[in-house]
């Protein structure tokens, strides 16, 4: 049974499972961690989970029909997401640095001047 599972060909579902695991890890990271840097790592995990989906949907080998739903579009989308993730990290880290210089910590709960 397990052997059959291992030997069966890899399909798009396997990749989607990896994607959703990364996504859930990212969400958990965001909810549990109070450190800004750790929360940003969570965001990166979410984006990469989505990226795995996009690339899997654009790979024809993974589909029995021999053609993929997204083809090149999905791969281009994934490249754009990488660039945007880098831009987002740059902005968020600059803001985190400014937060640190003002509050002396990168713990989000230590701000506490505003209570949303």
């Amino acid at each position, binding site marked *: 049974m397990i052997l059959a599972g291992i030997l069966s060909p890899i399909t798009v579902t396997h990749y989607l499972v990896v994607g959703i695991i990364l996504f859930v890890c990212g969400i958990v990271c965001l909810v549990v961690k109070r450190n800004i840097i750790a929360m940003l790592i969570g965001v990166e995990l979410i984006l990469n989970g989505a990226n795995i989906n996009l690339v899997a949907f654009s790979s024809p080998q993974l589909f029995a029909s021999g053609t993929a739903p*997204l083809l090149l579009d*999905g791969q281009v989308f994934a490249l754009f997401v990488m660039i945007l993730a880098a831009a987002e990290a740059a902005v968020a880290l600059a803001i985190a640095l400014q*937060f640190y210089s003002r509050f002396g910590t990168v713990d989000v709960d230590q701000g506490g001047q505003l209570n949303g």
Partner: protein
Amino acid sequence: MNELLELITQIEQNLAVSVRLWIPEICLVVTAIALLLQRMVFPAWRRGASFIMFVGSVAALAVLIWQVAGQSNAAGSVGAFLDVLRLDQLAAFLRGLILLFAVLFSVLTWLTHWPRIEDRGEFYVLFLGSVIGMCTMVAAENLLLVFLGMEMASLPSYILAGFEKRERRAGEAAMKFAVFGAAMAGVMLYGLSLLGGSLGSLDLPTMRANLTALASHRDLHGHGLSLILGTLMVVAGIGFKLSAVPFHFWLPDVFEGAAAEVGVFLSVISKAAALGLLTRLCLTLLGTDQASAAGLPGPLIPFVVGTLSLLAAVTCTYGNLAAYGQTNFKRLLGYSTIAHAGYLVMPVAAAVAALPVSQETARWAVASMLFYLVVYMFMNIVAFAGAAFLSRGAPGEKIENYSGLVRTAPGFVICLAITLFSLVGLPPLGGFAGKFAIFASLASAQLWALLVVAAVNTVFSLFYYVRVVKVMVLDPAAQSLSFSLPLSSPQGMFLVLTTAPVVLLGILWQPVFDLVCRAAGCQ
């Protein structure tokens, strides 16, 4: 190889037309570059940044108006850049609204002397970057452009929220905004990847066609989970931009911590762009198929209507109830913005609900949303400009600090009072006409429960807006208050000029209503 050549010829044919239609945004890019160069080339020209910003945004708006006025109704819908952008009447109207706001915003920052002259160049560059992203959002017809536009609009706004470097609260607000914003963008991207993967394309009309094929083959069950998850995640991402409950928690903090000028930017065009995107996604994906002219069968439309109605009702009620206990004026306006996001999502729900019955009703609902958006823009500009002038001149931002303001600044208080009454929706002001249009669209789409929620909320909202006016007019004057703002000063004239549309739209709504009907495609 042949496919590639074909693609290149297609791009060549399409490019000239596309670039010509995208000139307003190119104007903004040129303005941003000029702003960056101005500091190096003419460092002595201290007012340079404001001047370049004003000229650039006026030029962009003028080009857009000239283009729209020059084209006939039938030629209104063009797919630009290989159909990734749909430049139709709706996109033209919303881009016009966004650019008009950019013009008013440059005047407002000139008058409030914020940010400081040295920082102004960077401030405007970030603002323009965000504006270009919003123009992309309202025209996007491809999931890649949807995400790109959202991120382009969001990233500079995180920095703008923390722009006041000396203010401790601004740093905290920017940090919350950036982390939650990035997280919600990631969730939305995951939703987009699910929708694109299960519908087999990133192009919205193609997705629509594939959706019909899936629904007619009773194949929807295989994709049901990914479609529902994808829809919910995309609604969550747009809901964050709209500050809909339960994705609203960043907004009051950001509005209290950031400057009022940033508040007006986030509350007006950021919402306008998100609503434009939501409308286009709903109408293209769930509307009538252009190729086969068939409606969408299956349970998807009731599901989307239910989600949007629930979102709108909860957002509206929460915003109005939470505004009661507020003592800070900017924070109060933040909650008022949340409530109005609820009112503005209602007609979108009505439009989706009307889609299977009548296209015309759906278009009227979109028109009512656009009309309210115009009124809402002017109302919020006056309210936030008032808050900005007060925060520079009066001692503190608490509402009680403003008691008896009518004795030192009568004209200012009258403008602010008119706007606050209009935000409630009292006749004969613009807010009444806008709310009436929205209620009418809810009634014609037969969303009675939502109509009741909206009506009850209007009554709720009366009290906290009137409380501000009462403190300013009836309460005894505070000792330390020395704020005065005659209407003949440039600041006063700006207030009068932006209050005038609020009053006029309540009496003479017909010209603007014709305009929004044309934008929504009503007959």
